């Protein structure tokens, strides 16, 4: 296996359909109108020297190396900025051009260190390549003149260094930061000879606004911006394309390797979700795979107060299986269950639910999507006929109005956030509905037309008010509704939504949003013409999460914003494989492909495939499992790749349930918080150590490729298979591709999916079957999956979580860019430098009333529990609202959140908790007790470990 080298065409492709034919060095070539001469030349294999050009960026024309001659035109135009023309005759090589190019290179090299042999870019340096390409043999100017060779390196960023002595001021880094990432953290400071790249106002990279996405490093043609890993290890020798294991964007990366060591992960230009871009997590935060905390040997213990004992795989698997069998024998077949992971592959998730349904003999399987996007499944399923997001990511390029509700794309889905920002800079209008002033509201060259800073818990009221304005002001798209939706249902819904109590004026006091702003936002969304909704967990994680999803679907249908590019309803999935884990039948009421367990046809397919009778009744959801554990009827749990003790709400309830169980089996790469309550620990492996597929938020199925041996000895699917065999199942897959074949055989929407196809096409978006052989980038084009779109009445119902004198503030929670969910991965990387602790954002007025200053330790208390953390005083949150992240187990934000949940799906109400904030002198009693238990529970028997 060698290195994967993508062709750099120098400039971006043209979207034109009309072809233009020209001649380059005597060779005829036809390319789309608008293509640059440089790109046309590259299409036929002719390399025109270049330095400032790269096809990720707009043409710039500054380096003067790509000069060409064009017959009939004066001078030597830059090929990167010159578009092709019909009949054009281009010469890319002649004596005149060679002399000009050598002259340009001489100037560059006269102010560049000549340390190529010891330079970290040796072997991967465009400047070096160009010196060779133009035949540079001497530098007539010498090296003694004024130069930048003594410029000081900036090593402040943990992942890359900036060595200005090697900079040729091509501006590729600055342009990448602007055009690709959209942060505008870099600039060219000074002019002429004094020009230099500067992060912010001559700051260090780490102190600047740089978000460490890596776009500048990738764009740099020299060793000026270079990964520290390359400096330390040298150039990679082979690479493989794989899929990021962080958020639901599903970025493709080249894992560039030396043997079994990762040198760096570089975003893959042909990745259809990310088109060559990345964020600080995917690009750099993979070091957790090698972290010293990795547990690589199986362990067991009789009681959670015992130290762990390392054992063989055979003993661990046999112990887990015997315990599960014992519990079933003593307490019934339904006394055990399992939880699948949205961080694991489709194939692994499929196997876990198969083990539970066919091996355990019940439907007690659930997944972490329970606590994030389960309301999406319910709401979109009821209205459109499928839980799927309606668009691909590329669709945003054609949106005229973007409505972001309850999502923070620049932090939670950063690569898509950059894509969205690009579209906004190009002129699309933006509406943000969020209690917090997220970065999108106002950032360089972007300003939301409307920020509706609603009170947490009032989503349904706001979305219904938008619909009220649209219907009562005659902005509904009647033609679309008549053609695509059930008119009678629409008429009933329209009568409901037109009632005065849903008007912006009526709900202004409730939501805290001025009526005029709601009316203006509604008109903007309705006028589009292409209006797209993007939403996240700020929609779903409420007691009315499903109702809000339904209200959003109504809004899209009433304006006809469904079924074409640039529009749609787009749930931004939190974890890398949330979509896939849901698709794979991880919910207790559904088989893979979202078919209810009571569906005889679907059940029959699996009974024949698996050779056992299956239960037709829904199993327990995660919170119900814990309730049943406290009740004594659910005593065994297999948890693959999840950490419910940290991620799920009302920690004390979770811990109570786990403690009540007799056998908890945790399969993970680290001793996570849930493992503190486990009896068997089965070491897992990272995405770098196994084969499989992930499915991203746009339903795109992509390969995960093994680039190193599993540190624990087995891929996660193999561990599940061993457990299944020990439980008495016949399960003998030799490779994950065989699991995907079974998925395709049994799941209509995956019928056309196979590893062979993914190998050939890179990715495919489900549904992919006979009806859609090429996959389905956009859903509901001619008709809704359910036939006609269904308008459903979703009335606002106030949450039972109320503020009052004891708990007067509302807490809402979220993520930050550098950390990922429970932080198990990112906390074990240098990303921790950006976010070493969870902070409590509090409005200046609320802080002043409590005498709280920025940086003070405060106690955060709710009806569920209390914790301490430091305060960050900011008007980013509205008056009466506080906000924190949940990345650190020391803080345990979920000690505070309650067990209230969505009415339809039990998705927890993370986003609304009544709290009080007061000064604190130290950790709470809960934090002290938890830490003591955590320390004790992580002991590994020293003698047995040897």
């Amino acid at each position, binding site marked *: 296996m060698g290195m994967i080298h993508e062709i750099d065409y120098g400039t971006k492709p043209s979207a034109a359909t009309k072809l233009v034919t020209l001649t380059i060095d005597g060779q005829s070539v036809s390319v789309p109108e608008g293509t640059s001469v440089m790109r046309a030349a590259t299409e036929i294999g002719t390399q025109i020297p270049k330095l400032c050009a790269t096809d990720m960026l707009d043409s710039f024309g500054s380096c003067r190396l790509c000069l060409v001659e064009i017959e009939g035109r004066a001078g030597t135009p830059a090929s990167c900025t010159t578009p092709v023309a019909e009949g054009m005759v281009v010469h890319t090589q002649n004596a005149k051009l060679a002399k000009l190019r050598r002259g340009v290179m001489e100037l560059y090299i006269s102010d560049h260190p000549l340390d190529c042999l010891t330079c970290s870019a040796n072997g991967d340096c465009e400047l070096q390549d160009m010196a060779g390409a133009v035949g540079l043999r001497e530098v007539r100017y010498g090296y003694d003149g004024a130069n930048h060779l003594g410029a000081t390196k900036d090593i402040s960023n943990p992942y890359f260094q900036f060595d200005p002595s090697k900079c040729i001021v091509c501006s590729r880094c600055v342009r990448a930061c602007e055009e690709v990432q959209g942060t505008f953290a870099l600039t060219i400071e000074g002019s002429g000879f004094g020009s230099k790249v500067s992060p912010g106002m001559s700051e260090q990279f780490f102190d600047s606004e740089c978000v460490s996405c890596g776009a500048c490093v990738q764009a740099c043609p020299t060793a000026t911006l270079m990964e520290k890993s390359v400096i330390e290890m040298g150039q990679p020798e082979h690479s493989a394309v794989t899929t990021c294991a962080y958020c639901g964007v599903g970025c493709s990366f080249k894992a560039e390797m030396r043997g079994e060591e990762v040198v760096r992960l570089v975003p893959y230009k042909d990745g259809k979700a990310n088109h060559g871009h990345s964020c600080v997590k995917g690009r750099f935060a993979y070091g957790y795979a090698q972290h010293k905390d990795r547990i690589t040997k199986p362990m067991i213990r009789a009681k959670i107060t015992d130290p762990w004992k390392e054992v063989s795989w055979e003993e661990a698997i046999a112990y887990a299986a015997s315990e599960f069998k014992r519990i079933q024998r003593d307490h019934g077949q*339904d006394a055990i269950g399992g939880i699948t992971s949205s961080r694991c592959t489709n194939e692994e998730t499929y196997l876990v639910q198969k083990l539970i349904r066919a091996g355990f003999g019940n*439907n*007690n399987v659930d997944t972490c999507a329970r606590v994030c996007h389960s309301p999406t499944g319910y709401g979109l399923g009821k209205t459109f006929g499928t839980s799927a997001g309606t668009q691909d990511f590329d669709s945003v390029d054609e949106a005229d109005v973007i409505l972001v509700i309850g999502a923070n794309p620049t932090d939670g889905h950063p690569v898509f956030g950059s894509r969205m920002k690009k579209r906004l800079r190009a002129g699309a209008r933006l509406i943000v509905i969020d209690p917090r002033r997220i970065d999108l509201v106002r950032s360089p060259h972007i300003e939301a037309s409307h920020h509706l800073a609603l009170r947490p818990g009032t989503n349904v009221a706001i979305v219904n008010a938008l619909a009220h304005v649209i219907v009562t002001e005659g902005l509904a798209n009647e033609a679309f509704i008549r053609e695509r939706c059930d008119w009678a249902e629409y008429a009933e819904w329209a009568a*409901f939504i037109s009632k005065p109590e849903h008007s912006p004026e009526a709900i202004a006091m409730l939501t805290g949003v001025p009526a005029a702003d709601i009316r203006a936002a509604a008109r903007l969304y309705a006028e589009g013409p292409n209006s797209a909704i993007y939403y996240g967990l700020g929609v779903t994680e409420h*007691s009315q999460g*499903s*109702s809000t999803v339904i209200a959003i679907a109504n809004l899209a249908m009433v304006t006809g914003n469904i079924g074409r590019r640039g529009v749609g309803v787009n749930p931004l999935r939190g974890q890398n494989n949330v979509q896939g884990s849901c698709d794979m039948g991880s919910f*207790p*009421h559904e088989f893979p492909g979202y078919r*209810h367990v*009571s569906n005889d046809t679907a059940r029959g397919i699996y009974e024949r495939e698996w050779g056992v009778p299956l239960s037709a*009744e*829904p*199993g*327990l*959801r995660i919170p*119900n499992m814990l*309730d*049943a554990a*406290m*009740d004594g*009827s659910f005593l065994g749990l297999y948890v693959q790749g999840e950490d419910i003790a940290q991620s799920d709400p009302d920690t004390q309830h979770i811990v109570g349930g786990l403690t009540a169980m007799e056998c908890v089996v945790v399969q993970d790469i680290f001793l996570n918080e849930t493992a503190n309550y486990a009896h068997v620990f089965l070491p897992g492996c990272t995405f770098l150590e196994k084969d499989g597929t992930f499915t991203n938020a746009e339903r795109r199925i992509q390969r995960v490729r093994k680039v190193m041996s599993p540190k624990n000895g087995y891929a996660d699917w193999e561990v599940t298979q061993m457990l299944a065999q020990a439980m008495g199942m016949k399960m003998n897959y030799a490779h994950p591709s065989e699991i995907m074949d079974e998925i395709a055989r049994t799941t209509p929407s995956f019928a056309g999916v196979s590893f062979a196809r993914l190998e050939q096409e890179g990715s495919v978006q489900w549904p992919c079957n006979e009806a859609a052989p090429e996959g389905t980038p956009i859903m509901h084009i001619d008709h809704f999956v359910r036939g006609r779109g269904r308008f459903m*009445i*979703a*009335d606002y*119902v106030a949450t*039972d979580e109320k503020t009052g004198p004891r708990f007067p503030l509302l807490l809402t929670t979220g993520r930050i860019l550098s950390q990922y969910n429970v932080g198990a991965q990112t906390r074990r990387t240098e990303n921790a430098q950006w976010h070493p602790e969870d902070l409590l954002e509090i409005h200046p007025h609320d802080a002043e009333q409590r005498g709280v200053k920025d940086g003070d330790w405060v106690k955060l208390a709710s009806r569920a529990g209390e914790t301490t953390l430091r305060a960050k005083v900011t008007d980013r949150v509205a008056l009466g609202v506080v906000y924190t992240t949940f990345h650190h187990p020391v803080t345990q934000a979920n000690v505070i959140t309650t*067990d209230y*949940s969505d*009415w*339809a*799906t*039990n998705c927890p109400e993370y986003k609304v908790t009544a709290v009080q904030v007061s000064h604190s002198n130290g950790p709470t009693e809960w934090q002290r007790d938890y830490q003591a238990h955590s320390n004790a529970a992580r002991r590994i028997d020293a003698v047995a470990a040897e």
Partner: protein
Amino acid sequence: MSKMEDRLVHMANQIGKAFLLRPYQEAVDETAAHIKAFWEKRMLTRMFAHLDAGGAGLDEIPRQAMLKLQQALPK
């Protein structure tokens, strides 16, 4: 009422409220269908027992929905 029953009653009432604006019988039917589709049998068993004991705390629509489900049980 135990904590678990309290929780189940709360869940059932939440579901009932979601269908409150439907015609009465439709609201009962939708609530019953939702519970049947998503609740595990020991949750149902617990609620039926609670219903037999008077069904304290249950709103009218979920009460009727639970009764409907209970009556549909095989004799």
